[in-house]
């Protein structure tokens, strides 16, 4: 007992010793002593030497009270020679902060004078990092919990290794310069400016809102993104949009490294409330944003060729080709518009512009808020594009028209396929292709599939060419020879009358049998849907449901859809009457089709 007591007491003693050592001997004291010694050696007068001898190490800090929110920056406790020009060639932490004309520093009588005085601005306002800390690990923000590590100098240990080296460089500080130097074309914030231009050139503005800049609603609001996220997260979100959210439909833009960097710096500069503007200025700006600029002349109604060329300019200016293909420019994300006039008429394009989901319910195309006249001009321009590409052989036809979505291998994984909903059909699945009559396949090519991204090719291809490309698909991709299609006993018209009771019964059956894949809302997003390709059909896609006959609905439910996950429900004991109720329910939830009856 007594021995144990002695040992425990000894431990207490030792720990006390260690703690006292830790608390009273600081690294920064050594730096300060080194500074005093070296400065004394460099000083010329005795008075200067005496003053340095009199100094003893202590915590130095700049209290910033007149600039932004109050901050305490203790950086100068270690970096004591910041303003001492004699130390410009010393090693850190005792190196002079460089003087540059670019930062607005001026030389007066051979002596540099700073534009941004440390006493007024502190350090962290430009450099980030944690001003209150006195240990390198914490004050430089190496600690993974600190939201703003030294901009461009420090890469936190948990950042992704594959791009963390790209997150270094003094350029990253520009996002802090831009807090006060908000004007565009400011020389010191060139990368912020470049990022802002990229934000528009890549059509980021279509989906994302940034207060005072853009009004997109599809993606997250980025007004305060620089405050919320570190640069590694921003970089990752741009180059791999699905890294953090598997269901994100943000396109993966093909940007150069320099462009990504500029975008990251631009986004990092978005911090919501800017401390360089007063609340009154901010309020005025918000008032002005709602009011149209005064004296703006009523736009002259354009006609003919002038309208088309203004539309062309608008399509270019609004960066449509950040996603779409148009002529030689290709964003690699959305369908080819090069001969849109052959596939869609002007009114369809105009309506689609105003509200894309009204035509293709699951489209990711943002609803832009352009003036009606602009939409008109752009629609007219797109409708005027009527030159089909040359396609001498069916193989060329497939390459020109189909491959972008259905893929080089015909398996539905074309380059833009992941951005399309419903997903393009897998043409290699013989189970599906060979169980559908040739007429239906021809019809899908000729007239398109309503409510989906499959356009009608009837004006681009003549019947022979359609036959040709279909044969090409059969032989190249489907491969299995077509067989006689078994005739099913299916009613032409739904035998069950559409009544409220029938729909209620149908809904009941639907929730029990179908919602696992098609979802409770029948929108095709049930819990199992993510594991299934082709994805379960969105049964609220009114345009599609309207285009499908009762017969086809009956057949698909009763006998399943070969080559997809849809089973044959007759095997699971669904009677024809129950299917009738289901069909009534499906028709009933698509309001327009209910009105049609």
């Amino acid at each position, binding site marked *: *007992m*007594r021995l*144990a*007591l002695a040992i*425990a*007491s000894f*431990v*207490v003693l030792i*720990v*006390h010793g*260690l*703690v006292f050592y*830790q*608390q*009273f001997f600081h690294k920064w004291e050594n730096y300060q002593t080194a500074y005093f010694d070296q400065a004394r050696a460099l000083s010329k007068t005795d008075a200067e030497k005496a003053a340095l001898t009199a100094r003893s190490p202590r*915590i130095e800090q700049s209290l910033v009270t007149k600039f932004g929110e109050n901050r*305490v920056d*203790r950086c100068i406790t270690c970096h004591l020679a910041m303003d001492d020009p004699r130390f410009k060639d010393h090693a850190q932490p005792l190196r002079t902060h460089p003087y540059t004309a670019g930062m607005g520093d001026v030389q007066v009588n051979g002596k540099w004078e700073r534009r941004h005085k440390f006493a007024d601005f502190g350090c962290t306002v430009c450099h980030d990092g*944690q001003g*209150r*800390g*006195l*240990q390198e690990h*914490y*004050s430089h923000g190496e600690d993974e*919990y*600190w*939201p703003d590590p030294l901009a461009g100098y420090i890469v936190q240990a948990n950042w992704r290794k594959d791009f963390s080296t790209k997150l270094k460089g003094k350029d990253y500080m520009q996002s802090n310069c831009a807090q006060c130097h908000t004007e565009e074309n400011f020389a010191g914030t060139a990368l912020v400016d470049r990022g802002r231009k990229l934000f528009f050139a890549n059509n980021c503005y279509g989906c994302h809102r940034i207060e005072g800049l853009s009004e997109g609603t599809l993606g997250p609001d980025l007004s*305060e993104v620089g405050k*919320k996220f570190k640069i590694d997260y921003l970089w990752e979100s741009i180059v791999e949009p699905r890294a953090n959210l598997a269901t994100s439909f943000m396109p993966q833009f093909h940007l150069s490294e320099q462009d990504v960097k500029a975008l990251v710096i631009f986004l990092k500069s978005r911090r919501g409330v800017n401390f360089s503007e007063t609340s009154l200025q901010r309020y005025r700006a918000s008032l002005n944003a709602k009011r149209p600029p005064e004296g703006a002349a009523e736009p002259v109604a354009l006609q003919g060729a002038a309208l088309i060329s203004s539309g062309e300019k608008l399509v270019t200016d609004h960066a449509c080709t950040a996603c779409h293909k148009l002529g030689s420019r290709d964003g690699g994300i959305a369908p080819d518009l090069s001969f849109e006039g052959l596939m869609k008429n002007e009114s369809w394009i105009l309506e689609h512009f105003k509200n894309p989901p009204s035509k293709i319910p699951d489209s990711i195309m943002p609803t832009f808020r352009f003036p009606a006249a602009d939409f008109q001009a752009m629609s007219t321009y797109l409708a005027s594009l009527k030159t089909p590409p040359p396609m001498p052989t069916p193989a060329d036809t497939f390459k020109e028209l189909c491959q972008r979505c259905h893929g080089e291998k015909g398996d539905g994984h074309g380059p833009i396929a992941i951005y399309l909903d419903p997903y393009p059909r897998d043409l290699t699945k013989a189970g599906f292709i060979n169980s559908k009559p040739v007429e239906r396949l021809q019809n899908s090519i000729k007239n398109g599939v309503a409510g989906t991204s499959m356009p009608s090719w009837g004006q681009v291809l003549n019947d022979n060419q359609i036959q040709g490309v279909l044969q090409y698909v059969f032989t190249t991709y489907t491969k299995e020879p077509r067989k006689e299609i078994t005739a099913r006993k299916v009613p032409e018209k739904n035998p069950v009358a559409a009544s409220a009771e029938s729909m209620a019964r149908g809904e009941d059956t639907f929730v029990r049998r179908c919602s696992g894949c098609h979802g409770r809302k029948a929108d095709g997003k049930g819990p199992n849907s993510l594991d299934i390709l082709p994805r379960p059909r969105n049964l609220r896609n009114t345009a599609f449901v309207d285009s499908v006959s009762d017969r086809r609905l009956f057949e698909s439910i009763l006998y399943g859809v070969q080559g997809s996950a849809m089973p044959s429900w007759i095997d699971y004991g669904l009677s024809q009457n129950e299917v009738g109720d289901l069909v009534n329910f499906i028709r009933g939830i698509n309001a327009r089709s209910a009105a049609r009856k």
Partner: protein
Amino acid sequence: MSQAVKPPSLWTNMRELPANVWHSLFRNPLPSDDLQRSSTSFTNFFLHIHPVKVNKNTLRPIYTMGLGLMSFFLFLILVVTGVLLMFYYVPSTTQAYDRMLDLRGTVAFGIFLRNMHRWSAHGMVGVVVLHMCRVFFTGSYKKPREFNWVIGVILFLLTLFSSFTGYLLPWDQLAFWAITVGTSIAAYAPVVGKDIQFLMLGDATVGQEALLRFYVLHVAVLPVIVTLLVAIHFWRIRKDGGLSRPEETATPVAVSVKAVELKKNKTYGLQGFVRGPFTKIGNTPDNSVFAWPNLLIAELFVFILTLAAILTLSMMFNAPLEEPVNVMHPPNPAKAPWYFLGLQEMVSYSAFWGGVGIPTIFVLLLLATPYLDRRTAGVGKWFARERLLANTIFMTFLIVNVVFVIIGTFFRGPNWEFVSPWK
């Protein structure tokens, strides 16, 4: 007639001053015989909480494991470090986090005080639970100690609540979201749940009001209640006849002549008030030894051990300080403090039953235990065979809780989905 006593001269007074001051402070010399040992315990304010003699069973380390004392000493460490931390802390949403940074970086001993406070708080929750287990498994809550058990259960709940209120004060992401989760568990209570949450937070969400409320509870209200209850808890130990021990089967030695003579002596009137067993004074042969130095040295040992453990832990591990609060950016998963993760885990199965129903039943059962289990057999023995049923029930509850806490702490990832910690 005797000569009048000559008053001591001023010179003598001055010469004897240090000795007089010393003796008025320390009235007893280091005791060398039994009488002095008794009077040392009896006349010292800090020592008179001890009995003059304690049963040998009380001093068996394996019997109590010093857990009750350990909780008390941790509480003392918490009070001392807490008061020191109060000199630097400001319960304001704009300043609290900055103050944490100052404590970590600039204030002398700041980070060490915070570490000690943090690890003592976690340690206290654990040790109090272990202490409760010790009392249960030795059947020590039985008559006449029922009421002290009830106080103990209340102290356990207060310990949890003190720790919980302290969790918010650093005002970092960890604090903010743990309290958000913790208080929303309270909101699952029927009828009054939302009102309890509002009462705790002073708002619909965790904010300045909640910080101030938690601060006042943490530094004033709860410590005062705990201090009072701890005093009662100790006092009742004395009044209930010291710590529980097995019934002495037979008097070890036949009563000697001296003891018979003792009967003739005057019994002190005050002792007539004492009900139940009390420690005998005199040379009656029994199983007891003098508190000085036996009990004191044991207490000192527990104290030094506790202090050494906390100091070493504080030396080795820093108290966590995560990002400043960001209301818009919850961590995934947002977890409550570890001792509430069992609740959070149960909440993931059923909000009402996991968060309110089962815990309430559990606490009520704990409070009622000594009134439901009235058999007196098996007191004072670890895992007595006579108490197999009671011990098994308690052990089951305990293991289930511990397993839930472990699952909640280590096996739950984003969206509270099961993850393996070894991956």
